[in-house]
C-alpha cells in the first residue's frame, strides 16, 4: 500500500518518534538495553577469544581438563550467543532507529565501512563459533590441529568484530574527518578503546569462568568433579587478574587521549558530575585485584596448611592502595578555589589543601601500585601452584571467586555508564545532540579544534 493511500485512508504517519516517557524514557530504555547488551556481548567476545586459547593450551600441555573447559566455554557460547545478538537487534532496529533516528542515520553514513566489515565479521564469528563447538568430536585426535586452526580463525573474526564496534564507539567521543574511512577508523581514542575493551573482555571471561566454576564446585559432591571445578576456578581467576592488572595503564592511556581530544568529557569524568562513579570504578578495580589475592592466599593455605607471608603482605598493600586511590577528588580542590576561600594551607594546619586526593601524581602512583602488587601476587601464586592439591578448597575461596565475578560485571556496567554519559548531551561529541536530535557542527580533529572535514554531514 503506497503512502498516499495510507493518508487517503485517514491513517496518519507519526510526525515524531514514540513518546516512551519523553527524553528521559529514551535514555533509560536505550541505556539499560545497552548495559544488558555489553554484559552479554562482552562475555561472548571474551569466550570466543579465550576459548580457543584454552583448547590450544590443553593440546600443548596434553592436559584433558583444559580441553573440557574449552568445550564448556563453547557450550556456553551456543546457549548465550543468541541473547547477545537479539539484544543488539532490538537496540538497533527498534530503539536506535525509532527513538534516535537522526543520530543513527549520521552514524551509519559516517561509519559505513566499520559497520559493513562488522556485519561480515559477525557473520563469520557466528558460523565459526557453531562449527568450532559442534565439530569438537569430529575434528579430534589427529585432526585436532585443524580444529584449533578453526579456533584461531574464530579469534581473528571475533577481534575484528569488536574492533569495528570500537571504531564506532570511539568515533562518537572523538570524531575526525567524516569523509576519510581511515581517519574515521584511526580516530584518537579508537586504539586505546580497542585495547581497553579487548583486555576487559578477556578479564571478564576469566572472572566469569572463576565464578561459574566456584558455583559448580560448591554444588559438586563427586571428588573428580570438585577437583576439576576447583582447578577451573583457580585458572579463571589467574587469567582474570592477570588481564585486569594491565587495565590501570591501558585505562590511563585511554583517559589521556580523551583529555587531549575531548576535554569536556574528560573533565566530567575526572572532576565533574561523573567523578563519584569514576572513583567507584577505581574502588571496584582495587577490589577486583584484592579479592583474588585473598583467594590466592586462602587457596595455598588450604593445600599446604601454611599462610604465605608474601601474599599476606601484598594483600595488605593492595588494601592500603585501594583506600588511597579512592580518596574523593573533592578533597583536592584547585589552588584558586582554596585561595578564594582564604584556606591555602595544608589540612593539618586547618586549611583545605589535601594533595593526596589529586589524580596527578598520587592517583597515578596508586594505579601503578595496583598493577605492581597484583603482578607480584599472580607471580607468587603461580610460583607456588605446584603445591596446590585440587578439590580441597574451602567455601570462602569459592565465595571470593563468585564475588570477583559479580564485581567484574558491575565494573563493566559502570564503565559503560560513565563512558556513554561523559559526552552527554551529545550523541556524537560536538556534532549531534541527543535531545531534539540537532546537528551542532562539523567534527574536528586534534586539540587545536580546527576542522578538517571534507564531506559535509547530512
Amino acid at each position: 500500500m503506497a503512502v498516499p493511500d495510507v493518508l487517503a485512508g485517514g491513517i496518519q504517519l507519526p510526525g515524531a518518534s514514540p513518546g516512551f516517557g519523553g527524553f528521559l524514557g529514551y535514555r533509560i530504555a536505550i541505556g539499560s538495553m545497552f548495559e544488558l547488551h555489553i554484559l552479554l556481548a562482552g562475555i561472548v567476545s571474551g569466550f570466543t577469544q579465550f576459548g580457543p586459547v584454552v583448547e590450544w593450551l590443553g593440546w600443548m600441555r596434553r592436559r584433558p581438563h583444559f580441553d573440557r573447559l574449552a568445550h564448556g566455554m563453547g557450550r556456553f557460547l551456543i546457549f548465550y550467543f543468541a541473547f547477545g545478538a537479539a539484544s543488539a537487534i532490538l537496540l538497533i532496529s527498534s530503539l536506535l532507529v525509532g527513538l534516535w533516528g537522526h543520530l543513527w542515520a549520521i552514524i551509519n553514513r559516517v561509519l559505513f565501512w566499520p559497520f559493513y566489515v562488522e556485519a561480515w565479521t559477525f557473520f563469520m564469528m557466528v558460523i565459526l563459533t557453531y562449527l568450532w563447538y559442534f565439530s569438537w568430536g569430529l575434528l579430534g585426535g589427529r585432526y585436532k590441529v585443524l580444529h584449533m586452526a578453526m579456533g584461531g580463525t574464530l579469534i581473528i573474526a571475533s577481534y575484528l568484530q569488536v574492533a569495528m564496534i570500537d571504531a564506532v564507539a570511539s568515533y562518537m567521543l572523538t570524531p575526525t574527518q567524516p569523509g576519510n574511512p581511515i581517519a574515521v577508523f584511526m580516530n584518537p581514542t579508537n586504539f586505546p578503546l580497542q585495547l581497553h575493551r579487548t583486555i576487559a573482555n578477556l578479564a571478564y571471561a576469566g572472572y566469569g569462568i572463576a565464578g561459574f566454576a566456584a558455583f559448580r564446585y560448591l554444588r559438586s559432591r563427586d571428588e573428580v568433579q570438585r577437583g576439576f571445578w576447583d582447578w577451573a576456578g583457580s585458572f579463571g581467576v589467574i587469567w582474570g587478574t592477570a588481564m585486569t592488572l594491565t587495565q590501570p595503564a591501558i585505562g590511563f592511556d585511554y583517559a589521556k587521549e580523551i583529555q587531549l581530544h575531548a576535554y569536556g568529557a574528560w573533565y566530567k569524568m575526572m572532576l565533574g558530575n561523573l567523578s563519584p562513579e569514576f572513583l567507584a570504578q577505581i574502588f571496584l578495580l582495587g577490589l577486583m585485584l584484592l579479592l583474588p589475592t585473598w583467594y590466592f592466599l586462602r587457596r595455598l593455605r588450604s593445600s599446604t596448611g601454611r599462610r604465605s607471608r608474601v601474599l599476606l603482605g601484598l594483600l595488605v598493600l593492595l588494601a592500603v592502595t585501594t583506600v588511597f586511590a579512592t580518596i574523593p577528588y573533592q578533597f583536592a580542590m584547585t589552588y584558586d578555589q582554596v585561595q578564594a576561600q582564604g584556606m591555602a594551607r595544608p589540612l593539618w594546619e586547618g586549611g583545605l589543601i589535601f594533595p593526596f586526593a589529586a589524580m596527578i601524581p598520587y592517583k597515578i602512583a596508586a594505579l601503578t601500585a595496583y598493577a605492581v602488587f597484583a603482578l607480584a601476587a599472580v607471580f607468587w601464586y603461580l610460583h607456588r601452584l605446584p603445591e596446590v592439591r585440587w578439590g580441597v578448597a574451602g567455601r570462602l575461596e569459592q565465595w571470593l571467586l563468585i564475588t570477583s565475578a559479580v564485581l567484574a560485571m558491575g565494573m563493566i556496567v559502570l564503565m559503560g555508564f560513565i563512558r556513554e554519559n561523559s559526552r552527554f548531551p551529545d550523541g556524537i561529541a560536538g556534532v549531534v545532540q541527543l535531545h531534539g536530535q540537532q546537528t551542532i557542527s562539523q567534527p574536528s580533529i586534534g586539540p587545536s579544534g580546527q576542522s578538517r572535514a571534507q564531506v559535509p554531514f547530512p
Partner: protein
Amino acid sequence: MTRLPVAIVERLAPLAALPVRRTRSVARRAYAWLDDRSDLRRLLRVGLYEAVPKRGAWAYTLGSATLILIGNQIVTGIFLTMIYVPSTTEGWETLNWIKQHDEFASLVRGLHLWGAYVLLFVIGLHMVRTFFSGSYKRPRELNWLSGVALLLLVLGLAITGAFLPWDQAAYWTAVVTTNIPSYTPVIGEYLRTLWRGGDFVGPITLVRTYGIHIWLLPALLLGVIGLHLYLLRHNAEFGSYVNYRGAYRADGARPEREARRELEPPYPSLPTDDEWAAPLETEDFYPDQTFKDGLVSLAVMTLVFVLAVTVGAPLEERATQNTTTYTPVPEWFYLPLDQLLVLVPQQLISMVLWVPLFGVLLLVLLPFVDRGHERNPFERPAVMLPALIILVFMLVLTAQGASRLFNLGV
C-alpha cells in the same frame, strides 16, 4: 659432420679443465701450508662439526642472522666513516651530498640504517625465543647474560648512531637522550655534562657520540660476541624443550625415535638434570644447521637490501634549535619509552626513566630467579605469564605511540 665438433670438444675439454685443476692444486697446497702453521683444519673441525638439536632447528637460526647483520653494520659502517665528517657544520652536508649525488653511498647508508633496524628486531626475536625455550637455565646463565649485554650494546649503538646525521631528528634525539642521564641520583648533572661536553648539545656532543659509536661500543660488542660464541660452544646449543626427554613427561609417553647415534660432547658432560642434558635427536652443525642459518640470513639480508633500495635512509632538514613547528619523533625502538613519558605526569618522569633499568635488572636476574629444572614454557607459568604481560605491554605502548603520531599527522 656432426662428429667433428664433438671431437673438437673432446680434445679441448682437458685443456679447459687444466686451469681449474691447477687452481685446485694451488689452493690445496696453500691450505696445507696454512694448516701446517696454524692447525687450521682442527679449528675448522671444532668450529663446524658439532651435534646440534634437530627439532625446531629453524627457530635456532636467529643467532646466526644476528651475527650476519652485525657484520653488515661493521662493513657498511667502515665505509661510511670514509665519507662522513663528525662535525655539526659538515656532518649533515656530507650526508646531503651523498643523498644528492652518490647513489652507491646512499645505498650503503640505507643498508646501514635498515640493517640496524632489522638487527634490533632480530635480536629481540632471538631473545624472546631464548626466553621461551628456557635456554638461560643452568649451565647457560652466562650465555644469557652476555646476550643481554649484546642487546644493550646494540641499543646503545642504535641511539648513538641516530645522532650522527645531525638533521632535525638527530638533533632533538640528542637533546632528549643526553638529558636522560641527568635523572641519575647524585651524579646525573655530571653525566649529562660529560656526554654533552657542556651545558647544551653542540659540536662536542657530536664528536663524543661519534667516538662512542664507532670505537667504544663496537670494541665492547666484538668482545662480548666472542664471549657469547665461546659460551655457546662450551655449553652447547640447548634448542628448546621439544628436543628433550623432559618434554614427554606430562603423559609419560616417549618419542617414537630415540637418539639416532651416540651424542657428541659436550652434551652428556653437562651438570644439568638428566632429562634436559642431551637432545634426543641431533644433526651436524655443518652442513645441516649452517644451511638453515644461511637461508635465513640470506632472507634477512635481502629484506635489508630491499628496504635500503626502496625506502632508503631519510635525511631531514639541517639541525636547528630555532624552530617552533618541528615535531620530534622518536626512533621506533624507543617508542614504548616515549609513549610512557607522554602518559606519565611531569612529577613522575624520573620514575619512568627507571623503568628500562628495572627491565634490564629483571633480564639479568632471570636465570637466578627461574632456577627450576623445567624448560617447557607451558609448564613455567610463573615466569611466562608476567613476561607475556610485560611483552604485550611494550607492544601496546609501541602501537599506542604509533597511533598518537598518526593522529598528530607526523
